[in-house]
């Protein structure tokens, strides 16, 4: 059993992901914005982070940057996005050792990615680009 943190500001998506992940026997932590997710990362050190890109307070990519800077997560992360600039998101996520699942996604397919990431050695993400000094929180719309 793994501990998985989902950061997502849409409560329906949060709920359905919790159902699927919980059914697979994992412990689920949820956060409805990036800052809450950062606190949960610091406090609970989950095995895996799944994050939406557009969230109030702190966006998903910025959350991942902070998580890598503070070594809060070492495994591959999963980034969900409904944005149309997907290639840019993929490039940024790739540098942070994360895979992108565009919305709308299949929960079954996502579960495959989750299980695969959990099987992957945490050392695999040692080459993730850790950004420079922590700046102020970047806000994103919607």
């Amino acid at each position, binding site marked *: 059993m793994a501990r998985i943190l989902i950061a997502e500001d849409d409560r329906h998506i949060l709920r359905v992901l919790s159902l699927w992940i919980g059914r697979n026997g994992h412990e689920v932590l949820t956060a409805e914005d990036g800052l809450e997710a950062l606190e949960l990362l610091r406090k609970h050190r989950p095995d895996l982070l799944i994050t939406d890109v557009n969230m109030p307070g702190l966006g998903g990519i910025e959350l991942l940057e902070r998580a890598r800077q503070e070594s809060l997560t070492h495994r591959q992360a999963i980034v969900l996005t409904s944005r149309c600039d997907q290639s840019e998101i993929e490039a940024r996520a790739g540098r942070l050792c994360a895979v992108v699942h565009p919305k709308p996604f299949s929960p*079954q397919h996502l579960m495959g990615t989750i299980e695969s990431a959990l099987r992957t050695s945490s050392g695999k993400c040692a080459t993730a680009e850790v950004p420079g000094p922590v700046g102020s929180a970047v806000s994103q719309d919607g």
Partner: protein
Amino acid sequence: MRFWQAAGAGVSGSEHILFVQDVTQSKEAEKARDQFLYHVTHELRTPLTNIRAYAETLSQGVIDDEQTIRECYNVIMGETRRLNQLVEDILNVSQMEVGSARLDVGEVPMDDMLRKVVQDMQGNADGKQIDLVLSLPAKLPKVRGDRDRLAVVLTNLIGNAIKYTPQAGRVDVSCSAENERVRITVTDTGIGIAPEAQEKIFEKFYRVDDSRVAKIPGTGLGLAIVRETVRMHGGAVFVASTPGKGSTFTVLLPAIGLDESARRGAGTTGERK
């Protein structure tokens, strides 16, 4: 900032012609189109994600208790309505912006319309134990306008007031006649709007960067529709707000057949629906 496009052509020997064209307008149109696409994509994909995920949850037999199964169906229904509303709103606002929207003009008694809209919104207010109070003068002039579109304006404003007001708050709706105009105000005890956001909230897809706002479903088009509709009627809409205390939205519409007694604002009755 202005954008210029330059192109050169050789005429003969050492002579060249340089064409310089101001392309600011087309660049701005391009930027607006990109932003529109960006927002529409995001807003469409969110309900689509939920519809797909909950449908797959049901079809794969992930859950077996009746209550959660019912919850899944409700989410699918709700997100389908949200998607439909979004498409309607996009069409509405796009038609208004390009000037292809037409008003079906008639004489609209605003007092009757306000009673109807407030009655329709009463269930939403009750769900949050919000006092929804309508105050109307004894006499009110009619407005020349499109009944259906003006109803959308009032529904959006009162609906927003209820949405952004915490439990057990209050929403006051009032109407009065002044200087050949009808003034409608919707005041709430909601979360309020920061000064820097007060102008932007009327822009398409703008949503205040606040976790409390993000949790409340909305297309980000409601107030853009309000502004465009009011503008088409020759009126104006503006907001006054204090963060943490509440907001007042005011709509001014040209009145017709203004009765002198109403113009003086004689007699106001309070109605609690």
